[in-house]
């Protein structure tokens, strides 16, 4: 049910990401202060923005889950959060590399965006341990949703607190004293952001398709041969521990 339009979406993603890479290296001007390392901006910032939006989307899906009780909303929320976690790792690593190259430190505590991103990341790292330590699938969905809603509300508050606590020392690519980025940088950035967002949606849909078809397959298999369940030890043994709809998180 999630597979519809996946092919078009994948092709669009490849095209836009390819365009973004081309623009990054051949169209966007070289930064006067930072040189070629500034190009990581077109990867790092889209990663971070899409990851944060994914966390928020996970919270919105979780609200839907709590309101309707539908398991499919929980799946959407779960997949969105776990993909965002993967992107967040990427954002932290690229941010660290950029910080090292332009300020000389691997980590910069005076940068509120970086610090609050780390805190949000640490919080969401707890999502999967919480989720997989609850065995009942229905309760798992509800508890995970409650966590996703609370964490989604936490993101802006945390950002505000960290920002208030930090002395601003790094006006950077956005809003420099000379008046913002050149148009060509903006255009490249927007294409890169679009590409990253498309990549996220494609991956999200792919994983949901895989999960729902596996669920369907399990259902059909059980209906076909109720007795053979014991005959298939790997599946039967696994399912006694965990609900069949919950595969081990695939990073």
């Amino acid at each position, binding site marked *: 049910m999630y597979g519809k339009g996946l092919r078009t979406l994948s092709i669009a993603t490849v095209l836009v990401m390819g365009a973004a890479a081309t623009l990054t290296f051949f169209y966007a001007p070289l930064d006067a202060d930072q040189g070629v390392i500034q190009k990581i901006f077109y990867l790092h910032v889209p990663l971070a923005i899409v990851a944060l939006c994914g966390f928020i989307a996970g919270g919105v899906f979780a609200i839907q889950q*709590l309101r309707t009780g539908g398991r499919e909303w929980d799946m959407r929320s779960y997949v969105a959060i776990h993909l965002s976690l993967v992107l967040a790792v990427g954002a932290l690593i690229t941010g660290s590399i950029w910080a090292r190259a332009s300020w000389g430190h691997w980590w910069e505590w005076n940068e509120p965006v970086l610090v609050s991103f780390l*805190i*949000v990341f*640490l*919080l969401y*790292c*707890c999502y999967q*341990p*919480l989720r997989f*330590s*609850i*065995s009942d699938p229905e*309760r798992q969905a*509800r*508890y995970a*949703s*409650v*966590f996703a*809603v*609370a*964490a989604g*509300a*936490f993101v802006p*508050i*945390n950002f*505000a*607190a*960290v920002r*208030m*606590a930090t002395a601003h020392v790094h006006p950077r690519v956005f809003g420099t004293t000379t008046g913002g980025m050149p148009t060509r940088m903006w255009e490249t950035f927007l294409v890169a952001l679009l590409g990253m967002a498309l990549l996220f949606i494609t991956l999200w849909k792919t994983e949901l398709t895989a999960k729902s078809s596996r669920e369907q397959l399990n259902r059909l298999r059980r209906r076909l041969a109720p007795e053979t369940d014991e005959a298939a030890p790997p599946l039967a043994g696994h399912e006694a521990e965990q609900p069949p709809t919950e595969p081990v998180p695939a990073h």
Partner: protein
Amino acid sequence: MTLRAALAILRKDLAIELRTRQSVPAMVLFSVTVFVLFHFGLDRDELDGPLASGVLWVTLLLATVLAVNRLFASEREDGALEGILLAPIDRTSVYLAKAAALFLYLVVFELVALPAFAILLLGPNLLDAFPALLAILLLADVGLAALGALVAGLAAETRARDLIVPLLLLPLLVPLLISAAKASQPLLALQPRAHELGKWLGFLALYDLVFVLLAVAVFDFLLED
């Protein structure tokens, strides 16, 4: 009705705590131990300013984790939670009672831990900081209680409960730690003064408001079986 039920559960929790003396004494002992650890870890006899404020608040947060771990202990035993859920009461009352119990534990705990901190580690006189520090503590306790009870509810049904509570609670408390520690810093300095106190108290109040409302809204879903 909700409030009466909440008061009944709160009375039960306080009676258990008074007779078994589990959470609060453990928190006090823990905090004194942590002060000793900081004394040796930092190799300092007296602290002031940012260092004092940081040591105090990190210790209070870690001690809160102990109480949060125990918050649903009596409900987990012998299916007591099912008993409460069978009663024709609003589920929110369970949350309100637990948060109120945690708030009271924290207040009593701080009544002992704060003087202990002043005697063991604090350089400047604690009394100079007092009225402002009291306001910070009370607002922070509301936030700690609101989130602590929510996280306790979230973790109560999980297998790895003792691991989940600190991992979940501490990141959620970072904004609270930032504002409380920032607000206390100038108060615990060698020349105590209030600097940006209103800003941080306002932020703490906002944080409390958001998470109390949020927890009341979502807690029902944790008890829905």
